[in-house]
Structure formats: structure tokens, C-alpha cells
């Protein structure tokens, strides 16, 4: 992350300052002033609850009476004696590994297709965004059953070829896949972000490349993709964080149970059950901070490697 010195370059061009305060004012103040709303929100609204939850993760807290300090007990139990924790980890990692790359590939593919300046473009764009508009409502749960149940659309289609399919949505071998498909189907948000990124690539670069006789394929690899890497990087990080925290689809489709046989017991669904179903907010808080550690490690790793493949203009 190389950042040039907007404030300091302006400082050097002026009369040299001697006072420390003046230097701070010149160098640091603009950044902090621009961040002021965020600082108020962070210290006023966000940080307190975060620290509270960190404290609660070292307690036994049943929501209704005061928390009891148990030290690292919650964390010890998690890693030594909790099969549901292990199960939810497996489910979540499986979900992240398959849903994120597929969703991103799909979103990028469609965005490229929609960026070609075809007729009816706004309409297509709106249609493709539609599934994401629906969010995760009760209607989606019902719809997904219509499609993936034993007598659903998928099996009706398969029966044309004489194949008798299982009830995909409720069979422990496939139920997680129906949720992965749901995640991919709602690819609208990364698609829009990719589109916005594509829009920001100056057209004259393509024009110049065309004059040089570069093929579309080569233009994609030499211009589009490198200039899009900040957006690819953003989408990859955000989608991964979101996938790790994914809650609502599994909640509505499994009715909050994570069944069949815990095959859709997403990590945050388990956390939610512990917190609000079984009154173990202390344990749930510990679960949350373990998740944060995993996601933060992944994100830090991504940032460290980003300097090798993400190209910023600055």
C-alpha cells in the first residue's frame, strides 16, 4: 500500500513550520477531521458493544442474570468437547470454499457480458439483480422447496430423462449444495460492483489497444483484469467475510434448526441457537470471537499478498 503525501507535499511547498502543533495540524489533522464521523460512531456505538462481547466470551451469561467469570472455559470447551462446533466449522468452510469462488466467477462473467453495450442492457441488469432484491424472505424458503423438494422442479426436469432424484433440500448429502446454489443465484451485489469497476476503466485505453491490434482476449488480460483487481480484491474479501457470517438463508430454509443432521448448521446459526435458543450468550460470544480471529487471519493474509496482484493507480 503505497500512499503519497497529499498533505505533506503541500506542507513542503510552503514556509517550513517549527511548531510541533502546527506540523500535526498540517499533517495529521485533515485525515482525522475527515474521519470524525466515523470516529464518533466507532467509539460511541461500535467499540463498546464489541468489548462487551469480548468480556462476555470469558463468562457464563444466560442473558437474564449477571454473567459469571469462567476464564477461558468457553474456549477450552469449544476445542475439546463440542461436536456441534466441529460440525458447524466443517459446514461453514465447505460453504465458503465453494460458494465464494463460484459466485464471484458468475458475477464477473455476467458483468463482462453486460458491459458489452448490447441492446436492452438496463433490463437484463435489473433482471439479474432481481434475486438479490428478494433478500432472504419467507418467500425464498418456500420457493426453494418448490424447486428442490422431492417433487420439485429439478426432479420434474430430471424425470424427463428417467432419473428419479432425491429431495435435494432435505437430504443431508445435498442440502448444503442447495444453499450454495442460493448464494450463487443471489450474485447481484458483486455483479453491480464489478460493473461499476468496469465503468471506471477509461475507454481510451481500449481504443489505444485496438489501434495496436490487440485482441479482445488480450485486452481483457492486459487492461480489464489488471485495472479491475482492486474491485476483485474487494469482492473476494467481502464475499468471504459475508460467507463466513452467513446466517439468514440457512435460518429460513432449515427453520433455524441447521438440519437435516446438522448438514446446514452454519457457524452463526449454531451461535444463534446457543445465544437465544439455549441461553448461553457467554459461549456464543466466545464462538463469535473465534470466528473473528479466523476471518481476520484470512483478511490479513489477503492484504499481505495483495501487493503482488492488486494494481492501484496510485
Amino acid at each position, binding site marked *: 500500500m503505497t500512499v*503519497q503525501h497529499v498533505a505533506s507535499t503541500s506542507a513542503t511547498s510552503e514556509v517550513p513550520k517549527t511548531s510541533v502543533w502546527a506540523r500535526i495540524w498540517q499533517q495529521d489533522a485533515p485525515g482525522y477531521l475527515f474521519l470524525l464521523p466515523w470516529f464518533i460512531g466507532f467509539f460511541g456505538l461500535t467499540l463498546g458493544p464489541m468489548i462487551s462481547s469480548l468480556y462476555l466470551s470469558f463468562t457464563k451469561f444466560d442473558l437474564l442474570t449477571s454473567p459469571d467469570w469462567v476464564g477461558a472455559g468457553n474456549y477450552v470447551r469449544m476445542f475439546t468437547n463440542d461436536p456441534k462446533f466441529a460440525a458447524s466449522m466443517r459446514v461453514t468452510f465447505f460453504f465458503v470454499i465453494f460458494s465464494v469462488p463460484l459466485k464471484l466467477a458468475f458475477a464477473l462473467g455476467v458483468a463482462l457480458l453486460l458491459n458489452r453495450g448490447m441492446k436492452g442492457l438496463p433490463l437484463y441488469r435489473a433482471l439479474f439483480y432481481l434475486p438479490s432484491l428478494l433478500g432472504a424472505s419467507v418467500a425464498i424458503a418456500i420457493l426453494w422447496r418448490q424447486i428442490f423438494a422431492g417433487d420439485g422442479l429439478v426432479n420434474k426436469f430430471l424425470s424427463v430423462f428417467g432419473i428419479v432424484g432425491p429431495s435435494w433440500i432435505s437430504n443431508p448429502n445435498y442440502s448444503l449444495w442447495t444453499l450454495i446454489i442460493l448464494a450463487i443465484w443471489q450474485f447481484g451485489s458483486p455483479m453491480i460492483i464489478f460493473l461499476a469497476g468496469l465503468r471506471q476503466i477509461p475507454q481510451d485505453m481500449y481504443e489505444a489497444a485496438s489501434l495496436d491490434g490487440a485482441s479482445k482476449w488480450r485486452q481483457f488480460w492486459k487492461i480489464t483484469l489488471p485495472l479491475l483487481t482492486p474491485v476483485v*480484491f474487494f469482492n473476494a474479501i467481502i464475499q468471504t467475510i459475508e460467507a463466513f457470517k452467513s446466517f439468514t438463508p440457512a435460518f429460513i430454509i432449515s427453520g433455524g434448526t441447521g438440519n437435516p443432521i446438522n448438514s446446514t448448521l452454519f457457524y452463526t446459526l449454531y451461535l444463534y441457537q446457543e445465544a437465544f435458543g439455549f441461553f448461553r450468550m457467554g459461549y456464543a460470544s466466545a464462538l463469535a470471537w473465534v470466528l473473528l480471529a479466523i476471518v481476520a487471519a484470512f483478511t490479513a493474509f489477503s492484504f499481505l499478498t495483495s501487493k503482488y496482484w492488486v494494481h492501484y493507480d496510485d
Partner: protein
Amino acid sequence: MTDAPMKLTVVGAEAPAWRKRALTILSHALLIGASILMLYPLLWMLAASFRPENEIFTSASIIPSSWSIDSYFRGWNGLRTSFSVFFTNSFIVSISSVIGNVFACSLAAFAFARLEFRGRKIWFALMLMTLMLPYQVTLIPQYVLFRQLGWVDTFLPLIVPKFLAADAFFIFLMVQFFRGIPRELDEAAMMDGAGPWRIYWKIMLPLSTPVLATAAIFTFIWTWDDFFGPLIYLNQMRDYTVMLGLRTFTDSTGMSDYGGLFAMSVLSLVPIFLFFLIFQRLLIEGIATTGMKR
């Protein structure tokens, strides 16, 4: 990278016209096929809203056996408070959130993307961390906090955080886009004696229409779709948002008005769909601006 000579011959340029046309037709066919897949849920929901109640879950066909718009009338006034109130509330919350988010997040993003100050990387990392903690565990401390502020039972817990850039997603998004704007522009402005505020206001914002439009679209839609915040902080039905009103149609343990649910679900999509259609134009305008200034 652009000055690297590109010697490969162009496939498309030498291809005959029929091939180009075939490619276009193929693209359209692909897009139309995919659109149908995307549209199916809406069609199903539309059909369900016109269906007799006891047919919704038993009938496999998408065409109802009989059509009726009863569900719409029943749904609109079905709850103790009319849906016109819910729509008004949702608009208030969503529009305020859009204004707050676009403004506050772009300020913070400008600082992270363009200004040099001590502690920048640490603050950025802390900001990203706020994205990673599941909300389920901060819910209760946050509720206690808002209650002490006297904000429970008002829209403030839903709106004020947006004006304080509480959603790191948008800051991060804007940072990525701001960094794609050529730095020569700011430097030129600085030579002319422009301060950070002028650079932000006169250069960054006008050049960032695509990402600002994206942020506006997402904020509007996500705020509109959110039911958990309203669920926790709003107690009186006259303060409910559309999504919370929709949740009230169904109770898994007793009698529910599914017809009304689907009718109102269809209607609740209209504003966000329109908002999307209007704001996506800004995505397109974005190129013209960027290209021209460049």
C-alpha cells in the same frame, strides 16, 4: 502496461459478419435463458398472491386455479396499521440511510485512500474488524446502549449509525474505487492551492459517480430489506417498516395470511426495483464523466 506492444492479431476483426451476428444472438439467448431462471421466483410469488389460500402449498402448477386480487386488499389493510404507514416509514429510514451512508462513508474513505496521517493503517484494520464480528453477540450491549440514549422505539438506532459511517463495507468499497482515480488530478489541484476538502468535493465526488450510485443502491435496498434492526428497536406497529410488517403476516405456530404475505411481498419489491432502475443510470453516466476528464 499499455505501452507494451500488442502484436497478436485480432480474432474478431478477421471473423466474417455472420460470426459476429451469431455471437450476438448467442449472447442474447444466454441472457434470456438466464433471465427466465431469475424471473421464476417473482412469477411464482405473483401467482401465489392471486391464488386461493389453501392452494399455495399444495399446488405444483404456477398457474392458479382461480384468480383473485383479494389478497392485495386484505393484505394492505390486514394488519392493525395500514401498509401505507409501513411504506412511509421504510422510505424515511431508507432515504435517510442513503444520505447518511454516502456522505459519511465517502468522507472516511477519502481519508483512508488519499490522506496521510499517523495511525492510518491501524484505524483501517480496526474498521475492517467491525465487519467480522457476528451481530448476534453485539446485539444486546448495543440495545442497552441505545436504551440509555433513549433511542429505543424511535428510528434513531436505524439511521444515526449510517451518518456515523458504521457500515465498514461502504468505506472499504469507496476506498477501492477512490484509489483507482488518477492521482495526477489531485496533484494538479494541489498545485492550484486546493486543500483536502476541495479535492474531495471537487474532484473525488464528481469522478466517483459509479461507486456512489452503487453505495446508494445497496444502502437503499439493504435498509429496505432489513428486518432485524426494526424488529429489535421498534415496538409500536405505527413505526414498523414494510419488512417488519411482512414478518407479522406469518406465525409458524398458528394461522397465517399467506395470500396477504405474498401480495404485500410483491408490492414491497416495487420501490426497491424502481430505485434500482433509476440509480443504475448513474452507473452508466459514470463512464462518460471519467472518460471525458481523463
